[in-house]
């Protein structure tokens, strides 16, 4: 470069480059503290699945020496790879939480192979022996909490009709519906659960219509398995029905109508993970649990829940925590009259057969197809 022609613009460019170098230096210095990256598929204040994870992230933020970086609405495509790489390379994250089911294969697997020193914790429970060792997956048996919700719902219903607004008939959803119904039948053997599938994870108008149709049928306690339970909770409460929440505590939306709910307990799990890492322990690559392992929890009871219901629900909760009770214990018939779990069979929490569930049990009104 001809020095006589250094213009003001060149000087500014040089200055900017220096400043940039400075900030990068500062960043590496900061990286002495642990940076953790969170990736959400939707909006993190959706009163649902993503908010549950964001609450877990918030619990980590409170710990000293921890920096949390977050990105919302990252689709389950190449986009998540770019987000992970930028969290690793630009923010210096050493632990990543890609929280959506569809992120795992091939995206997390690919990036985990590329960065063997970074730890990846994927929510969804898809890890197998073939996958990289620095990646792991965790998930919770939230049907245990749905079972407790079912007990409370069974006591609270006057008509004996419960409603379930569900997205799609996949095993996880069916397991929640069945566990909810088993709980309800424990409290009220005549109780039935009417299920409506809306067809997708976020369909507010359909969810509102489903809620109204169920209530028109005489249903007086509703719960759901969709991404954002807000629509169901608000519309059901407006019509004077009770609700059991899902994903997070929705009682602020309907304080009078809210009975209890099945919540994720990521704010207990994530600090646990961090402790394992800092103490040099390795996190199991395949991590699962329910109420006992504090991966799921039940919302505090609403004021409308009777003392009898509280007592029974607390009792069963204690039994589940101690591992003394099996929810899916034969004989269980499906709603077409076929035996799906034989008389002497107990399918415990971790039974892989339950992950293939494709039936609705006796007492559920609805069909999987």
């Amino acid at each position, binding site marked *: 470069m001809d020095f006589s022609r250094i213009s003001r613009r060149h000087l500014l460019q040089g200055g900017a480059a220096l400043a940039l170098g400075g900030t990068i230096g500062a960043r590496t210095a900061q990286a002495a503290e642990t940076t953790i990256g969170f990736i959400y598929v939707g909006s993190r204040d959706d009163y649902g699945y993503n908010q549950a994870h964001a609450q877990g992230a918030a619990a980590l933020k409170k710990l000293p020496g921890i920096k949390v970086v977050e990105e919302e609405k990252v689709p389950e495509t190449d986009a998540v790879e770019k987000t992970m790489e930028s969290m690793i390379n630009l923010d210096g994250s050493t632990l990543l939480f890609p929280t959506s089911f569809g992120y795992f294969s091939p995206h997390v697997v690919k990036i985990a192979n590329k960065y063997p020193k970074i730890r990846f914790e994927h929510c969804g429970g898809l890890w197998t022996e073939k996958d990289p060792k620095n990646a792991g997956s965790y998930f919770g048996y939230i049907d245990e909490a749905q079972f407790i919700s079912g007990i409370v719902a069974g006591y609270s219903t006057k008509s004996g009709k419960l409603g379930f607004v569900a997205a799609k008939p996949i095993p996880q959803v069916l397991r929640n519906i069945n566990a909810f119904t088993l709980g309800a039948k424990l409290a009220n053997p005549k109780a039935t659960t009417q299920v*409506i599938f809306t067809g997708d994870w*976020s369909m*507010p*108008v359909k969810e*509102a219509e*489903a809620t*109204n*149709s169920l209530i*028109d049928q*005489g249903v007086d306690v509703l719960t759901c398995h969709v991404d954002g339970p807000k629509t169901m909770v608000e519309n059901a409460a407006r019509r004077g029905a009770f609700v059991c929440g899902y994903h997070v505590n929705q009682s602020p939306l309907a304080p009078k109508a809210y009975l209890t709910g099945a919540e994720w307990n990521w704010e207990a799990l994530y600090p646990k993970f961090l402790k394992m890492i800092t103490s040099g322990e390795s996190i199991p690559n395949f991590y699962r649990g329910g109420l006992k392992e504090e991966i799921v929890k039940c919302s505090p009871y609403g004021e409308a829940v009777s003392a009898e219901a509280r007592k029974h629900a607390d009792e069963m909760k204690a039994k589940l925590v101690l591992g003394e009770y099996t929810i899916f214990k034969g004989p269980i018939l499906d709603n077409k009259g076929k035996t799906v779990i034989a008389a002497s069979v107990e399918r415990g929490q971790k039974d892989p057969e339950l992950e293939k569930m494709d039936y609705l049990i006796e007492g559920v009104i609805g069909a999987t197809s």
Partner: protein
Amino acid sequence: MADASIGLWTVPLAVLGGAIRVSTPFLFVSLGECITERSGRINLGLEGTLVMGAMSAYGVSYLTGSPWLGVLAAGITGALLGALHAGICSLPRVNDVAVGIALMLFGIGLAFFLGKPLIEPTAPRLPAIDFGWWSDIPQVRAALRINVLFLIGVAIAPILYWAFKATRWGLLIRTAGESSDAARAMGHSVLLIRLRATMVGGFLAGIGGSFLSLFYPGSWNEGLSSGQGITAVALVIFARWDPLLCLWASLAFGGAAALGPALQSVGVTSGYHLFNAAPYILTLAIMIITCSPKRTLTGAPAELSITR
């Protein structure tokens, strides 16, 4: 609610209730689009306008505590987006369909961006008028809890029908839509007419959005519209640019949207995906029955870029 089951009667009742509850956004967007298209322009951006309207209505209602101010804000937001569309389209050789798609993406993106802090709070909602007081059946009462916006929409349709036929500005809009040369020869500015028509269309679409967030389903979230704006634009073609037909078509679409959940609730569970698709099947069927290769669609304004 003791012994509240009314069995199979739920289905017609839910379809009626759904027609009233779900149809309002369709109605407002399609009436708005009807005005715009009659002036010779297509505004495909109404999906974005609808979502922006929903977001701004919710935000203003939350901040001021008055849902009616929210409705007004939604209308104004819609009119501004309409003005933007018309402004860009008045430049030479600009394609209104392409601008519409761009504005649709712009509107949705902007609404999601600005609406981020609004997902959690609960805003005051629009009141409902209880038209079911005469009935003891709670289901009937619930179905007949009607929002004023729906009534306004129902009133606008015949007024618009009459206005297109009998008023000066209605005829002017039609002239601009049928032959811009004729309008120009009469000494009117076609661009100005279209600007106004697009703004009014946007205003109505914005109000349609406010219904979504302030009445039914009644809160702001990002999946709120799920394509209702686009459906309503298609509905105008389906309704042959006739405001009265827009009303019936909107009611049919609203009722059809309630059909899937209602049938599942009474135990008709097979093929619920098919019932959920009912509105679209209905559209396709009518399109196939009425289309002809020999002529353009009856009622289509001659200046529309899709018919020209």
